[in-house]
C-alpha cells in the first residue's frame, strides 16, 4: 500500500497525468466539507473527542458564534507528543485498529477525520498532556503544521480553533450570523450533555455563560439543569428491554403535550442520531392519549447488541442503520406505551409534579481510572471504550427492580376496595396510595369500551399488528366483505361484544351519507353488536344492539355514531382504519354520559374495569380519564410541609 505523503508526489513528477491523487491538505479540506460545516460541527467533533478521552469536565468557549474562536478544554487522558502530531493526520485514530472493531465501535468518533479536517480549514492550536508528563503544543494553520513545542498543562487536552474557514472563503460566506451559529452550538452541546450525564459541561459565549451543567446523577437532573425544573417535571420515565434491545428515557406526560415544537432526542449507545421512523414509532405509542397532531417531546436512549447497529452510515454520524429495524421500532413503541400506562402518566393537579422516577440500573465500579459516563440509563455494556460485557449481564443481572414506592403506586387501589364518591353525577373520586384520583366517568367508560371493542375485532387496541393498515378509500367495503367469513370466529374466540336482541326492532331512516357508512361498515357494526339489515330506501332495521351499560340507548348511540362516521370529525380522522373508527365512535357515543348518577356498585365496576385496560389514564380523544392530586400537594396547600 502506498502512503500518500511519500509516493504520490513522486509519481506526479515522473509521469504527467490528467488524473492525480489530491494532496492531503486539499483532501482534508474536502473531508472538512462533510464533517465541518459550521462552528457547531467543530464543537461537536471536539467535544466528542474529549468525551472519548474520558473527560469528566468539558469547557467550551466561543467568540462571535464560534466564527472567530472556539476553545474546547477537557480533563481527559491527553496525548503524548507523537500522538498529538499523528492525530492531525487523516485516518489517524486511537479508537479502532482492526476492521472487526468497526462493528462493535463504542466510541463517538473513529474515522480519524475530524481533527485534520478542522485543522485544514482554520488556525488550530492543540495543547495536550498525559498524566505526569510535560505538555505539548502544536500549532497548525490551514492544515500545515507550523510547529510543536513543550508547554505547561494539566492532564487533558485543549483545542483552540480560530478563524474558521479563513482559507475557504466560499464556505465562510455561508456562515450565518453569530446568534444563529451560537444557537447551533448550544443545541449540539445540549444533545451531547444529554448523552453524557456524568461529565460536566460549561459553555461560554463572548465571556458569558450559556450552559453550566454539573455532572448529573440521572437524566431528570440533567434535564432540569439544561431546560429548567419545570420542564423536567413534565416527563415520565420509560424503560423496556426486549430481545437484547433496551429502551430507556423520558417522554412527555400526555396532558402537558402542547402544540409547541417538540424536543426529540434519540441516542444509541450514547450516540445522538436522527431517525424519523423511530419518532413515528413514538407518535404511534401516544395514539389516543393525546390530541391527534400534537408532537410529544421525548428523550429515548437505545442500546442494542454490538453489531445490531451500523453507525458508519453518515460522516457526521447523524443517522444509523439498525439490523432489525422492526424490533427497535417495536420496542420503542412498547416502552413508551408501557410508560403511558402508569399512574405517573396521568394528568395531575399538582403545581409541582414529582420528578420522573428513574429506574436505576446498577453501574459497575469505575475501573482503570476511566470515568463512568453511563450512570443512569445505560446497561453496563453500553459503556464507551470498553468491550461490551456478555449479553446475560446486560439483559438481566444489571437491572435493579423498580423502586418499591413506585411499584406500590402502580396500583392505585389502597387496601381493600376504595370507597368511591360521585361528584356532580360526572366524576368519581377515589383514594389512591399517593393521594386522590378524580375520574371522568364518561372518559373512563370510553377507554373501557374502546379497548373492549378493539379486542372484539381481534386487534390489540394499540399494537402495530392485528389490524391491517387502512386500505385505499373505496375498498373498505371490499375489505369488510372479505372478512365476512372470519367474522363470527373472531368475536367468539375473544369473547367479543354481546348483542341483545331487541323486542321492538329500531327502524332508522338515514341520510345518503349515513346509509353509505352502514353499507360499508355493516360487518364491523355487526361485530360491535349492532345487527341490522337494509329495509328499503335508505332505511335500516336494527334487530340487536350491544348493551354497554343499563342507561344505554341503542338508537341514540347508533344515530350519533353514523352521523359522526358520515360527517367526519377529529376523532374519525385520528383513526388509522375502519376498525378504529368504529371502535372510537362507539366508545364515544356509547359510554356512560356525564350527568348520569351511578350506584356505588356501578362506580366500583367502572373503576375496576378502567384499571384493567391497557392505558387507563387516557381516553380515546387524547384527554385524560384521571386527574390525580398528590398528598404532597395537599400538604403543601395546607401548609403542612
Amino acid at each position: 500500500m502506498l502512503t500518500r505523503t511519500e509516493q504520490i508526489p513522486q509519481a506526479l513528477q515522473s509521469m504527467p497525468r490528467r488524473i492525480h491523487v489530491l494532496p492531503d491538505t486539499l483532501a482534508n479540506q474536502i473531508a472538512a466539507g462533510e464533517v465541518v460545516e459550521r462552528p457547531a460541527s467543530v464543537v461537536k467533533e471536539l467535544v466528542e473527542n474529549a468525551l472519548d478521552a474520558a473527560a469528566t469536565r468539558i469547557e467550551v468557549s466561543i467568540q462571535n458564534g464560534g466564527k472567530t474562536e472556539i476553545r474546547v478544554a477537557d480533563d481527559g487522558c491527553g496525548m503524548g507528543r507523537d500522538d498529538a502530531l499523528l492525530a492531525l493526520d487523516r485516518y489517524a485514530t486511537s479508537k479502532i485498529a482492526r476492521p472487526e472493531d468497526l462493528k462493535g465501535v463504542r466510541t463517538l468518533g473513529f474515522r480519524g477525520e475530524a481533527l485534520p479536517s478542522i485543522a485544514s480549514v482554520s488556525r488550530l492550536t492543540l495543547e495536550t498532556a498525559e498524566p505526569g508528563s510535560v505538555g505539548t503544543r502544536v500549532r497548525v494553520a490551514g492544515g500545515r503544521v507550523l510547529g510543536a513545542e513543550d508547554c505547561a498543562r494539566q492532564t487533558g487536552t485543549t483545542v483552540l480553533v480560530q478563524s474558521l474557514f479563513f482559507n475557504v472563503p466560499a464556505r465562510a460566506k455561508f456562515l450565518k450570523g453569530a446568534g444563529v451559529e451560537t444557537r447551533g452550538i448550544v443545541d449540539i452541546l445540549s444533545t451531547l450533555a444529554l448523552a453524557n450525564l456524568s461529565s460536566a459541561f460549561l459553555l461560554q459565549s463572548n465571556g458569558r455563560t450559556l450552559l453550566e451543567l454539573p455532572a448529573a446523577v440521572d437524566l431528570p437532573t440533567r434535564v432540569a439543569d439544561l431546560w429548567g425544573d419545570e420542564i423536567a417535571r413534565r416527563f415520565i420515565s420509560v424503560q423496556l428491554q426486549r430481545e437484547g434491545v433496551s429502551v430507556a428515557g423520558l417522554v412527555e406526560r400526555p396532558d402537558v403535550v402542547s402544540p409547541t415544537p417538540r424536543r426529540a432526542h434519540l441516542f444509541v449507545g450514547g450516540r445522538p442520531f436522527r431517525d424519523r421512523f423511530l419518532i413515528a414509532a413514538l407518535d404511534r405509542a401516544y395514539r389516543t392519549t393525546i390530541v391527534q397532531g400534537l408532537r410529544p417531546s421525548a428523550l429515548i436512549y437505545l442500546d442494542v447488541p454490538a453489531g445490531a447497529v451500523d453507525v458508519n452510515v453518515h460522516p457526521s454520524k447523524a443517522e444509523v442503520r439498525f439490523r432489525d429495524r422492526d424490533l427497535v421500532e417495536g420496542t420503542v413503541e412498547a416502552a413508551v406505551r408501557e410508560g403511558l400506562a402508569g399512574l405517573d402518566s396521568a394528568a395531575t393537579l399538582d403545581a409541582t409534579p414529582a420528578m420522573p422516577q428513574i429506574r436505576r440500573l446498577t453501574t459497575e465500579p469505575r475501573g482503570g481510572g476511566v470515568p463512568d459516563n453511563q450512570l443512569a440509563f445505560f446497561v453496563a455494556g453500553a459503556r464507551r471504550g470498553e468491550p461490551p460485557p456478555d449479553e446475560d449481564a446486560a439483559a438481566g443481572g444489571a437491572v435493579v427492580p423498580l423502586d418499591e414506592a413506585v411499584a406500590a403506586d402502580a396500583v392505585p387501589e389502597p387496601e381493600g376496595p376504595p370507597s368511591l364518591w360521585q361528584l356532580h353525577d360526572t366524576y368519581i373520586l377515589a383514594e389512591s396510595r399517593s393521594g386522590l384520583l378524580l375520574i371522568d366517568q364518561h372518559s373512563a367508560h370510553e377507554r373501557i369500551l374502546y379497548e373492549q371493542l378493539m379486542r372484539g375485532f381481534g386487534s390489540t387496541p394499540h399494537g402495530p399488528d392485528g389490524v391491517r393498515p387502512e386500505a385505499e378509500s373505496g375498498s373498505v367495503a371490499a375489505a369488510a366483505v372479505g372478512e365476512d367469513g372470519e367474522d363470527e370466529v373472531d368475536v367468539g374466540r375473544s369473547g367479543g361484544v354481546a348483542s341483545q336482541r331487541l323486542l321492538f326492532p329500531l327502524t332508522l331512516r338515514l341520510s345518503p351519507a349515513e346509509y353509505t357508512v352502514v353499507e360499508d361498515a355493516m360487518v364491523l357494526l355487526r361485530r360491535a353488536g349492532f345487527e341490522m339489515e337494509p329495509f328499503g330506501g335508505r332505511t335500516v332495521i336494527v334487530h340487536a344492539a350491544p348493551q354497554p351499560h343499563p342507561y344505554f340507548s341503542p338508537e341514540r348511540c347508533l344515530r350519533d355514531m353514523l352521523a359522526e362516521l358520515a360527517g367526519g370529525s377529529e376523532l374519525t380522522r385520528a383513526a388509522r382504519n375502519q376498525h378504529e373508527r368504529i371502535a372510537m365512535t362507539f366508545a364515544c357515543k356509547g359510554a356512560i354520559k356525564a350527568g348520569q348518577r351511578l350506584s356505588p356498585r356501578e362506580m366500583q365496576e367502572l373503576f375496576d374495569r378502567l384499571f384493567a385496560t391497557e392505558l387507563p389514564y387516557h381516553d380515546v380523544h387524547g384527554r385524560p380519564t384521571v386527574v390525580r392530586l398528590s398528598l404532597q400537594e395537599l400538604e403543601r396547600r395546607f401548609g403542612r410541609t
Partner: protein
Amino acid sequence: MKFTITRDNLQQGLASVAASIPTRTTLPVLSNILIEADGAGVRMSGTDLDIAVSLQVAADVEEEGALTVPAKKLQELARELPENPVRISTKADRFELACGRASFKLNGMPRDEFPTFPAVDFHDAWKLSGQVLSTLIHQTSFAVSTEESRPILNGVLWQLGDREMRMVATNGHRLAVMKQAVNFPGAGRVDLIIPPKALAQVERLFAGGEEIEVGRSENHLGFRQGGTRIFTRLIEGPYPNYEQVIPKDNDKHADADKAGLIQALRRMSVVASEQTHRVRLSFNPGLLRFSVESPDLGEAREELEIDYQGEPLDIGFNAAYLLEVLRYIPTAEVHLTFKAPERAATLEPVRPEGESGPDYLCLVMPLRLLE
C-alpha cells in the same frame, strides 16, 4: 289552624305522604307537606309535580286552616315524639307543635305557593279491588325501562277493557304482561301509560282488599279509596305493539323447577361477564346445560334435569334478565317456550291442578351467541 292528633295518626299520615315528596327539588315548596284542617279532619298532601299523594287522617279540629311545613323535619320530629296527643297550631306562617312537655316551632310556607292538584273526575270511575290492582303492578312494573331515550317504555301500560284488563311493562329486552278478568260493561277499551313511581304508591297504599276508584282526566289519573288519593300524570302514547312481539309459534317447550333454575343461574352469574351477564343454555331432551365463558375470568358449567322433549337448542341470555323474571314467577314450576336462538323466549307459571290465577307471561329476548 288548630287541631289535636294522636302521635300514631300523625306518623301514619306523614309516612304515607312522605314517599311522594322529592328530596331534592328546585322548587322549595315541594319539599314541604301541605296540612289542611277542616270539619272532616286533617288532610296531608305532598307532590313532586308528577304524582301527588293526599291522605285524610282523624284529628280533633278546633280551628280550620292550612299551612305547608318541611316534610322531612316534621317526619323526623314525629318519629321522636312521646306517645301523647300532639297539639298543632299555626301563627301566620309559623307552625307550632306541642307534645307532652316538648314544644316546637317550624317555619312554614303559605298554602297559595303549593301546587294545586289536577282535577280528576271520579264520576265514571272504574271500581276494582286494590289487591287485584296491586298484584298486577307488582308482577309487571319491574320490567319498565330505566333508560330515558324512549319515555314511553319508562311507563307501565294499563289496558282496561269490558271483560279484561292487562298490565304490561318492558324495556325492549324483556317484557311482563298480566291479565285479569274484570267486568266493566260498556266502558270500552282504554290504554293508560303510567309512571311506575305512581303505581308503587298505589301498591303501597292500596294493597288491601277494599274497592278503589280510578278516575281520569285528559292527562291525569286518580286513585281513590276512603280519604286517600293518589294522582299521577299520564305518559303520552302510543305504546309499542307488544302483542305483535309475543311469539305465538314457539314450538319448543320446557318445564323446569324454578328454584333449581334460579340457583344454577345465580352460580353461573358469578363467572359471567359483569357487563352482559351472558349465559348459554343448551336444551336437550330431559336435560338443560348451563355454561359461561368469560375470557378474562374463566368458565362455569352446570346441568339441571328438566322436562324437555324438543330438538336440541342453544340459546344465550342475559342471566340478570332471566333471574329477575323468574323471581316474579308465582309458582314453583315454570314453563318456557322457544323457537330459535335469535327469537324471543317466554316464561309462564305452571299452576298445580285445580289452582287458577291470572294469566301471566314474561318474555326475554336472547343475547347473540357466537361460536
